[in-house]
């Protein structure tokens, strides 16, 4: 129990009475990369949103670092060390890259810490340093995705949740972005990842969960999932 950073137990969520996920459970250990795989509408984003505090589960509980955080509002979760990079990036379009990053560190009061984190993310994504003054909306999709990840890192999270990083990126860029994710993980950030590029995601992940219409249908190590015929047929077209 205590070696789990995040434990989601049997949560159910609905939108206006329509069930989106049901009795879903999942654990993420300290230092792991865990991938969540599933078709469109399976409930992957809903799961992440309920962990991030954007929606409140109807039932079940969510524990983070041993503390019950079920129903904690989103604006408090970042102070607990959970950072969510939402689907579709959701950058602040009319603000510059720099201002977006500063907002990522909104929870951090110390100027020195913010500067140090800026240096870290610029080190990880040098392109952002060059584009510091550019408006977020004028950047390319790939640059925007890097900016979104960097913004998610600016709060110095323990757990970074990444929702569909690959959306709209070309395959070579997806690998590059996922490599950066692995690098972020090596620096000690635990990662929960939703990804349509199943093969690529499982290659960097330790473990994976497969969800279908709001339920976990399969989970295991990345190796075992990659070897599973069912999974290969359903999600990798092989």
């Amino acid at each position: 129990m205590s070696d789990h950073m995040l434990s989601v137990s049997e949560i159910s969520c609905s939108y206006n009475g329509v069930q989106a996920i049901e009795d879903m459970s999942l654990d993420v250990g300290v230092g792991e990369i865990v991938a969540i795989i599933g078709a469109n509408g399976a409930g992957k984003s809903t799961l992440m949103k309920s962990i991030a505090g954007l929606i409140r589960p109807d039932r079940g509980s969510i524990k983070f670092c041993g503390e019950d955080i079920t129903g904690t509002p989103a604006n408090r979760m970042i102070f607990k060390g959970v950072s969510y990079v939402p689907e579709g990036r959701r950058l602040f379009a009319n603000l510059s890259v720099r201002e977006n990053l500063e907002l990522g560190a909104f929870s951090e009061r110390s100027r020195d810490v913010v500067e140090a984190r800026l240096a870290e993310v610029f080190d990880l994504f040098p392109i952002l340093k060059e584009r510091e003054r550019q408006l977020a909306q004028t950047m390319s999709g790939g640059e925007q995705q890097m900016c979104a990840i960097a913004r998610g890192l600016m709060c110095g999270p323990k757990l970074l949740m990444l929702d569909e990083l690959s959306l709209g990126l070309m395959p070579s860029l997806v690998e590059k972005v996922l490599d950066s994710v692995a690098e972020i993980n090596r620096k000690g950030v635990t990662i929960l990842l939703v990804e349509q590029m199943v093969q690529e995601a499982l290659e960097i992940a330790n473990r994976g969960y497969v969800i279908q219409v709001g339920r976990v249908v399969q989970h295991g190590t990345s190796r075992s999932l990659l070897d599973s015929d069912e999974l290969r047929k359903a999600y990798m077209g092989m």
Partner: protein
Amino acid sequence: MAESVCSRPSNGGTILADFSQVLIDGLMNGAIYALVAAGLSLIWGVMDVINFAHGEFLMVAMYACYWLGSLLGIDPLFSWVLTGAFLFFLSAASYLLVVRRCIGRSAMAPLLATFGLSIFLKNFCLNRFTPNFRLLSGTIMEGRVLHVMGASVPLPQLVTALFSLVVLGCLYYFIKRTRIGWAIQATAMDREAAELMGIDTGRIFTLVFGFGGMCVGIAGGFMTSYLAVFPEVGALFSLIAFVVVALGGFGSIPGALLAALLIGLVESFAGFYIAPVIKYVAVFALYVVVILIRPKGLFGW
């Protein structure tokens, strides 16, 4: 009602003197409109809420300033600090008590709620203070006039206009250059994403409503040095503020400033060179034309 703004002796002057008089009047009125409109624009831009009580907040500020002046002898030159703070709290409280409950429901809900608030405030003042016009007399700037390029410029209006510009500049700087300002912009652009940054957007909304009230609190405070106060005084200003915001683009402070100066100028030029009764016709005609050509306003995004 705005006749009381600019009743002043004709200097019977030359064409040039007339022109500079009309120009300066237009710019001064425009600057004041800009501050009144900025408060409306900020709330509208960040929260998508049209505050129909905005003009009544202005009226409340003017009454507050009037009573501070006539009962306690505090000059409008100083009481704007108090009315600005008072309106900040009044406006933030209206958000917390009334408007907050309507957010996230139908778009009509906050509109009707603020409309109700405006009727309440207006009738409260009508009931307590009678419909009579009240002009604060014996103020420090009273009757002082500067002469510029053949035009006579009353000091109260000039100081109000210049101060409006200073307040607008401060507000703009605050929104563009400070952490809280970025948080306000972020909340305006994407409330959910702002929450994910650790921004308590409910508090940002309260703050923004407070700032909206503060703008008319300060404007109203200064305006009391030359304008009569009565329960309907907010109506014209709020109408003009709507036009300014629609022309200038929602949430844009530079847009509000440019649109307000334009409207001030159209008003004074049409009033002088065509006919005084035409001035608001000209303002609203301009509004209709611009909205037909550019629905997002002259400077809108």
